[in-house]
């Protein structure tokens, strides 16, 4: 009887009280209470101060950079992440196991390591950086660098979200479409894409959220120059904690703003995803 139950159904399985107690206690202690402090702190600023802070050119710039670069990186990741998933699911080729096993490297590799390594690779004393510079592209210490770092840390989100869906997708779908005379591209767009869309959105959302809040892998390659607009929000928050004039209220307000933006984006994505998945499940 799968009817919606508003209150807890009495279950024969023991342990409800214990696990509820421990879960809620630990969640509150380690996550919710500290986060509530950020909220409380940011309310120490008056509305006017809050607005003044948020409209400061470097703050606006930083939000634009964080969100813009994270969006660009998440989109690139959707493309390459899906491609990687596709290749890993559909084809056999030498080195496939290795490729599959290494997709999560960006999760396992400390962000600081990724940050300094990418910086050296793409700066003008690295060979990639020199190659790009010779065609007039400056990768390190620019927004492009930030995007590169965010692509690096975000790629597993998309691949790992899409891969299981592709694995489960029956090849009959494609065959049916091909038999009806659809071209390869048409088949992909009209048959496969709708199937993987919800998963792709999940991956996109996770990569985006990660990119917007990213610190370690970004701060080295970005150069953190106000003039070039390569400061990210995390960097500005950290500055307020570090520099001589500590500004906790400002940091808390920025953090709150960042939280609101992240959650709003995840919320919107959730709605879109819900709509998309309803159609494919029908």
């Amino acid at each position, binding site marked *: 009887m799968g009817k919606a139950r508003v209150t807890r*159904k009495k279950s024969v399985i023991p342990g409800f009280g214990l696990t509820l107690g421990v879960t809620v206690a630990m969640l509150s202690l380690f996550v919710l209470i500290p986060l509530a402090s950020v909220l409380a702190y940011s309310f120490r600023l008056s509305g006017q101060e809050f607005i003044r802070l948020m409209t400061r050119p470097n703050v606006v710039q930083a939000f634009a950079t964080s969100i813009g670069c994270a969006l660009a990186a998440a989109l690139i990741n959707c493309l390459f992440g899906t491609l990687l998933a596709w290749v890993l699911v559909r084809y056999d080729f030498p080195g496939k196991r290795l490729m599959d096993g290494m997709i999560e490297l960006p999760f396992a590799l400390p962000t600081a390591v990724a940050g300094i390594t990418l910086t050296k690779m793409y700066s003008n004393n690295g060979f990639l950086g020199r190659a790009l510079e010779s065609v007039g592209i400056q990768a390190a210490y620019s927004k492009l660098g930030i995007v590169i770092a965010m692509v690096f840390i975000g790629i597993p989100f998309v691949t790992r979200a899409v891969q299981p869906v592709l694995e489960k997708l029956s090849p009959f779908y494609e065959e049916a479409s091909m038999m009806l005379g659809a071209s390869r591209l048409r088949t992909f767009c009209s048959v496969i894409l709708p199937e993987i869309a919800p998963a792709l959105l999940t991956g996109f959302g996770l990569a985006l959220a990660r990119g917007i809040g990213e610190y370690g892998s970004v701060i080295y390659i970005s150069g953190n120059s106000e003039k070039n607009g390569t400061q990210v929000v995390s960097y500005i928050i950290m500055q307020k904690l570090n520099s001589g004039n500590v500004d906790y209220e400002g940091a808390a307000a920025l953090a709150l703003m960042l939280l609101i933006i992240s959650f709003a984006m995840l919320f919107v994505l959730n709605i879109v995803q819900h709509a998309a998945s309803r159609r494919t499940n029908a």
Partner: protein
Amino acid sequence: MYVEMKNICKKFGSCEAAKGITFGIEKGKLTALLGPSGSGKTTLLRILAGLEQQDSGDILIDGKAVNGVPANERGIGFVFQNYALFRYMTVYDNIAFGLKVKKMEKKKIRERVSEMVSLIGLEGLEKRYPDQLSGGQRQRVAFARAIAPKPDLLLLDEPFAAIDAKVRKELRAWLKEMIRKVGVTSIFVTHDQDEAVEVADDIFILNEGNLEQTGSPKDIYKHPQTPFVAEFIGTSTVLESLTGFKGFEDAAPGKKAIVRPEFVEAFKSDNQKFKSLLHAVEYGTVENIAFRGSYWEVTLSVNGMQLTTNRSLERRDIAVGEKMCVLLYRAYVFDGNGAEIRKNKLLEGVDIEAL
């Protein structure tokens, strides 16, 4: 009465799964709770087991109220719908689990488990895991696991649902035999009337949270008390009215009637056997003939209404469109109060069974 349920009510949100159900079961009986899906039969079984809590009403087992008694203290063995065998335990450990929980001595556990294993005929498979067993074998293990701790009452939730059709027939006989051997009072839930008729001593028919009728399989088949039961048990055709048929002219108009295939006879007009009954015959046209393995299922259009009858393969061939004589022996007629059997008046004094 060994098991009694008194006025059991249960709601899930706006869905009433049990609307004041009352019944009693005698010790040693094998009872089927039969009903379509959504009739509340599984809920009732789970309430009896203590897996769900009734909103109101009392449950008595062996004369003792067990309302507040948790599931594990009711002394009930339960066979779950998909068996819920422990996938990470061997056959032996599955059967031994309930005994270990009861802190039985190791030696006694071993004895009881091997007794169970030989009872269900799976000697030599004790070390296997559930995924290495066939569907039928899994059901046997689930049964053994449930009765190993010697429960006073055995409940089975759709015990044959997860088994393919061919093995199912074998297992029905097997289960009936086992339960008789063990001698445990048992209740099982099913949506399949054949299953209920074949296995159970008594059948309780449930519909939309109500208990429609109780009785032996034959009793229920012969004397359905509600339109639902008449329609649910056996194959049947519903007629809006009987008044158009010869011999039923005095049937009250507007009452629905239910006709079983065996209430209908169709024969060619030159049939000698039925010659004496021609005065009671209606004429019909064959609309459809379907092969059912051991007989033909023939659908006829009579007076604008459809009747179905079964025809032996031994009889003469018939064709779609053919005109035939149709004899209606009897029908169930219903009103708000219940069902009654109406016999064809023109056939009074004729020994129908002899035909």
